[in-house]
């Protein structure tokens, strides 16, 4: 198969072609590997690609298919964010402290994907320990936006977003703590979903902020995202926070809800924020589109939105400071010798962690320290309750909420690196969703005049991931956008 096909090849279509015997998983995997060879030197989305391993998995998938075995993703090549463990392969979190770490076990999502027959191509770049909004905080190299190589792909799951945008994998997994799936999906013109907190097991995801972290899919369209989500969701006894409930068939629900009208809320506070004019114009167009589709659109209020950034940048660093205490040079990771145990800890951590990670560990340690706990961590946790209540109240009146994903289109590399606070502010629309534990989706919704992708966010009540996907599916069909980065059109 030629690479032109790859530009429009969805997981669903690839599965049909595989089942009809028109292509093999080896051919498909080979095509993705060739694409990686051609494009990845430009965008640097992957930290690790293992051809031999990928082709071996593909051969196995082809054998299984021949033997009449089934799997929801049998033979489909995927990219995995490098903070998710795959046994026997590196997991670096884009950090020097884990540069030589080889995962001794599989994350639950990986076991589930293996069970469905997926093929892993490699591991993708991220902001170190998923801390960042541009993938510039990777200890190894930044990833570039395929729509404009001078711009960031968003973050922290920038590598996974770019892998899918460039078809260097038919889908990908990322993790989202404050927008780390949705914002890069938006910046790269792909679908990205943060599921309801607890829907997907985090066992084997390197912990950043445990009350916020969630694994989710990147895909070319909603159907593929629904398929991936279906494959990775479900209760896991190894993750005590995972929800003990049945996983619905998201792919079937999409079809069942294909024409269902919803009540969609537009939070007025999100428009009090400074919006880039093209983002503002696009969201107005999306509101018109909703009305055209027969949905009831009404204004809702989320009055505590303006405190979300403060709350998040207290809670997430506090949890990170605790979670990252494990990197001490003792059992795994970088060890820098010192005269005493404490000196070894201090030297290993100082050399192993990058600037942003250290900044957040310091911030979190401060927010939890004696004398400041009440004023920072406890106060933030109380305001978090109010942010969550805002959403619960809004969902008494509407089924779903529509917002921009990011206040601006993709920004330039280096534009925000010198001012951490400016970088933090770019997460204003995605962070509240994590604080409340809700499902959120980023859907490509158009382009700027310069041809950069724009995206819209759909937020649902707890465990209504099905509704979020359903509205996304309706909008996607109506929009019918061709979202192919120019860099691929030459291929």
């Amino acid at each position: 198969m030629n690479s032109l096909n790859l530009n429009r090849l969805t997981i669903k279509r690839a599965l049909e072609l595989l089942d009809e015997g028109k292509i093999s998983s080896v051919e498909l995997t080979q095509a993705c590997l060739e694409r990686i060879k051609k494009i990845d030197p430009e965008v640097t989305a992957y930290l690790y690609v293992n051809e031999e391993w990928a082709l071996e998995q593909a051969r196995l998938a082809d054998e299984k298919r021949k033997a009449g075995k089934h799997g929801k993703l049998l033979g489909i090549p995927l990219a995995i964010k490098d903070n998710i463990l795959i046994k026997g392969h590196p997991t670096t979190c884009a950090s020097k402290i884990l540069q030589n770490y080889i995962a001794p076990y599989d994350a639950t999502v990986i076991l589930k994907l293996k069970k469905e027959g997926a093929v892993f191509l490699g591991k993708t770049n991220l902001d170190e320990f998923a801390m960042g909004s541009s993938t510039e905080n990777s200890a190894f190299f930044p990833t570039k936006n395929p729509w404009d190589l001078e711009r960031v792909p968003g973050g922290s799951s920038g590598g996974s977003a770019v892998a899918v945008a460039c078809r260097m994998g038919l889908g990908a997994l990322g993790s989202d703590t404050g927008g780390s799936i949705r914002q890069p999906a938006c910046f790269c013109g792909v679908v990205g979903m943060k599921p309801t907190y607890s829907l997907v097991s985090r066992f084997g995801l390197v912990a950043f902020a445990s009350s916020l972290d969630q694994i989710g899919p990147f895909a070319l369209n909603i159907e593929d995202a629904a398929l991936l989500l279906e494959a990775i969701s479900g209760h896991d006894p190894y993750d005590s926070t995972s929800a003990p409930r049945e996983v619905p068939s998201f792919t079937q629900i999409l079809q069942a809800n294909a024409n269902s009208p919803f009540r969609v809320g537009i939070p007025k506070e999100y428009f009090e924020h400074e919006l880039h004019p093209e983002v503002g114009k696009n969201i107005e167009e999306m509101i018109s589109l909703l009305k055209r589709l027969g949905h009831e659109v009404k204004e809702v209020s989320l009055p505590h939105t303006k405190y979300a950034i403060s709350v998040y940048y207290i809670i997430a660093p506090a949890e990170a400071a605790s979670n990252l205490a494990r990197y001490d040079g003792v059992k795994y990771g970088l060890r820098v010798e010192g005269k005493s145990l404490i000196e070894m800890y201090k030297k290993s951590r100082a050399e192993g962690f990058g600037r942003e990670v250290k900044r957040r560990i310091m911030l979190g340690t401060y927010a939890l320290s004696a004398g400041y706990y009440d004023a920072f961590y406890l106060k933030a946790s109380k305001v978090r309750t109010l942010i969550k209540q805002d959403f619960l109240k809004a969902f008494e009146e509407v089924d779903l909420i529509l917002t921009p994903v990011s206040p601006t289109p993709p920004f330039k590399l280096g534009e925000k690196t010198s001012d951490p606070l400016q970088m933090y502010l770019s997460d204003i629309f995605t962070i509240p969703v994590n604080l409340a534990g809700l499902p959120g989706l980023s859907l490509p919704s158009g382009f700027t005049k310069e041809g950069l992708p724009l995206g819209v966010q759909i937020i649902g009540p707890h465990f209504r991931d099905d509704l979020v996907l359903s509205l996304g599916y309706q909008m996607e069909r109506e929009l019918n956008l061709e979202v192919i980065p120019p860099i691929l059109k030459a291929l």
Partner: protein
Amino acid sequence: MGISIDEVKKIAHLARLELPEEVAQTYTEELSKILDYFASLKEVDTDNVQPTFHPLTWDTPMREDEVKPFEDIEAVLANASELWENMIVVPKVVKAP
């Protein structure tokens, strides 16, 4: 609010991070700016609000504490920087009498 350079050094010690003098100064400036931004939280009335520490709506599930063998102990040990037989070597933590 702000934070002093001495507080930054104390925090770095608590967080077990070696902090050279010149870096301490930069962190003091950056962290002060971020902490100033957090000041707006003071205006929110939270007197009768319970904190949210996680978004779950159910209690921590309990299960039997069963011992299960981990299959690949070698793979775990292989990540340590110094081994002695099947033990991880660390600097001495107790002083000789």
